[in-house]
């Protein structure tokens, strides 16, 4: 072939003419890079339009991340609770009944009697297999005093092995001992929160706390139960009664706790607990405020809980108890997580669908708008796949950019949720990656059709298009 050579074209040009028909042309990185630059330019040309078009993807991606973060947070929280309460445990709590049917009667009597009794526990031990009454506990809610400082707190009478059973860690000092339990000694362990409030300046170990007329020597500080699960179940009935007096109550989230030997509590305060609150007087007789029933490893927890429920139903006229099965809590949390996933997943799916359709719509409009350009490019040697690549890259850039903004938003939303809805959220490292990939995929899915439509235009007609 004796073609005239343009003086400008070098030999290198001629050789590069020869690698034309390579099937890899579409995914040639150089070509993709140029298409990306081209795509960015034309998106930048219509900044506002591009931004608005990408909005659907932005929200879709943000909800994907928020969904995953909330779901993870919920299940983490549940696992934390499970860890605190023990997976083999069943926790029975006494609940002060709301005076409904027996109102007249109750008001007459000075002492309100309710809750889990010795009799219940006897029957449970006798009938439910593999059961062990692990941690009995009674609670008093009253003011604790350090000299002139006072604070409304919960006093839990319990057993020396409480920390192991509930996975609670000692921060300082020690928990009270068996020997102190046997001797009904006036010793106590307080939680960090209470220590910080009552003894802000010095270490409380060795100091004394006053509860009504009794002084308790502090032997250790235990970590605060961050999840609040313990008190949530333990004091519902009481806190209701105390609402009037608890005007100075501190952060509801962080419970103030003091633990004393159960025997000491019985010894000092007797079977009937009296409370004087802002002039009024109340007395209640509760055998146990809280009992942790441990099921041996070999036995299933949920049927055991069911059996216990039957026993309590038979023994109590009113529902003045509450059965908490941590394992069920976990299940419930899983269900909550599932519901969140369904709700947010639907939002994400709808956003992405609508966003994708929006992108497709705009891309179809763009294709029509740029028919002339397509014609020119075709006349100048662009193959159909070059046009496909050009428009597909543009769509992917659009949805990818939306995805990036969405990731930013999605990382922000859980922070807000955590702050205002008081829910724990966890962002897994793979969540943004996944959400971003989904946005890119949306671009591919919804970009294919406009791109093919652009490429299949007749060059002659495209050139004639006004």
């Amino acid at each position, binding site marked *: 072939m*004796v073609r005239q050579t*343009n003086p400008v074209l070098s030999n290198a040009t001629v050789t*590069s003419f020869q690698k*034309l028909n390579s099937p890899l042309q579409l995914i040639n990185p*150089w070509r993709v890079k*140029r298409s990306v630059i081209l795509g960015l330019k034309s998106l930048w040309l219509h900044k506002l339009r591009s931004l608005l078009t990408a909005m659907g993807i932005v929200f879709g991606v943000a909800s994907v991340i928020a969904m995953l973060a909330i779901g993870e947070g919920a299940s983490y929280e549940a696992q934390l609770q499970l860890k605190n309460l023990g997976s083999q445990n069943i926790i029975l709590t006494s609940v002060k009944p709301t005076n409904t049917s027996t109102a007249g009667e109750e008001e007459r009597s000075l002492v309100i009697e309710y809750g889990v009794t010795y009799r219940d526990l006897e029957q449970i031990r006798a009938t439910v297999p593999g059961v062990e009454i692990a941690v009995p506990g009674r609670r008093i809610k009253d003011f604790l005093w350090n000299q002139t400082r006072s604070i409304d707190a919960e006093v839990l009478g319990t057993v020396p092995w409480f920390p192991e059973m509930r996975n609670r860690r000692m921060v300082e000092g020690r928990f009270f001992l068996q020997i102190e339990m046997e001797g009904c000694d006036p010793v106590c362990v307080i939680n960090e929160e209470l220590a910080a409030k009552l003894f802000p300046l010095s270490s409380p170990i060795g100091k004394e706390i006053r509860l009504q007329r009794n002084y308790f020597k502090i032997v250790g500080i235990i970590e605060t139960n961050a999840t609040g699960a313990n008190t949530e179940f333990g004091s519902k009935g009481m806190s209701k009664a105390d609402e009037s007096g608890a005007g100075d109550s501190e952060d509801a989230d962080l419970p103030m706790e003091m633990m004393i030997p159960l025997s000491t509590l019985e010894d000092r305060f007797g079977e009937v607990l009296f409370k004087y609150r802002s002039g009024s007087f109340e007395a209640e007789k509760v055998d146990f405020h809280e009992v942790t029933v441990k099921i041996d490893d070999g036995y299933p927890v949920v049927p055991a809980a069911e059996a216990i429920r039957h026993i309590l139903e038979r023994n109590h006229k009113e529902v003045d108890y509450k059965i908490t099965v941590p394992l069920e809590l976990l299940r419930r949390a899983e269900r909550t997580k599932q519901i969140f996933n369904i709700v947010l997943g639907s939002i994400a799916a709808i956003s992405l669908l609508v966003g994708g359709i929006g992108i497709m719509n705009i891309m179809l409009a763009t294709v029509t708008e740029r028919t002339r350009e397509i014609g020119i490019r075709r006349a100048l*040697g662009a193959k159909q796949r070059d046009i496909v690549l050009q428009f597909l890259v543009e769509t992917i850039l659009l949805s990818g950019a939306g995805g990036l903004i969405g990731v930013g938003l999605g990382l922000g939303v859980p922070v807000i949720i955590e702050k205002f809805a008081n829910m724990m959220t966890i962002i897994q490292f793979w969540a943004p990656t996944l959400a971003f990939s989904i946005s890119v995929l949306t671009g591919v899915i919804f970009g294919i059709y406009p791109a093919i439509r652009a490429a299949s235009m007749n060059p002659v007609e495209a050139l004639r298009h006004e």
Partner: protein
Amino acid sequence: MPPKPRMSDRRPIIELRDVEKHYGMGEITVKALRGVTLTVYEGDYISILGPSGCGKSTLLNILGCLDQPTEGDYLLEGENVANLADDDLSQVRGKRLGFIFQSYNLIQQLTVVENIEVPLYYQGISEKESHEIAASLAEQVGLGSRLDHRPAELSGGQQQRVAIARALANDPAVILADEATGNLDSKSGGDILQIFDDLNQRGKTLILITHDEGMADRTSRVIRLKDGLIHYDSMGQAAPSEMNYKSKALSTG
């Protein structure tokens, strides 16, 4: 620059043989071209004239491989391109043909130099190299100082010069110009024609579609189309075409 070869030495670049183009419009079939036979030689400087509706645009589309003939053969540099697949046609257009349009057809969002680079881009030529080629071509058409301007910032004549530079970028075998001066005033149009003359002097093959007789006078060969047939060819191929036309007219009439 080598001296212009004599006609007998010149090799044919384009050979059209009995090319017909039909357009289906419902029941009726319109024959835009009814058997065009034409040979274009290397270095030809041709103007194709004719009233509107004579098939000029159709012929140009077929010559430019933008469209394919319904009947007949089209040999471009010896290769039959009448029945090529779409990708191969793109290939032929990008590599062997240069287009110049009446309305310039520059891509508005690209700069002068980027517009000239477009055909090179589709031939897979590296960024650096195509930039060099494009800059040098812009220089040749007198736009060396406006490489980074957008088409909207240029006058019509300047835009058309960008289009010429773009048509030259791939060193095509033939340059096809469709009413290249149609949108320009006589001064700018004259400049464009001067560039065409220079290109032909340098051995380029040009086919100009026009209805401007003055433009036709500058070219070395004039072809007149009428009713989808070659009515006159200054190179002496008019007679058979005329007879063909008459015989067809008789048979159809």
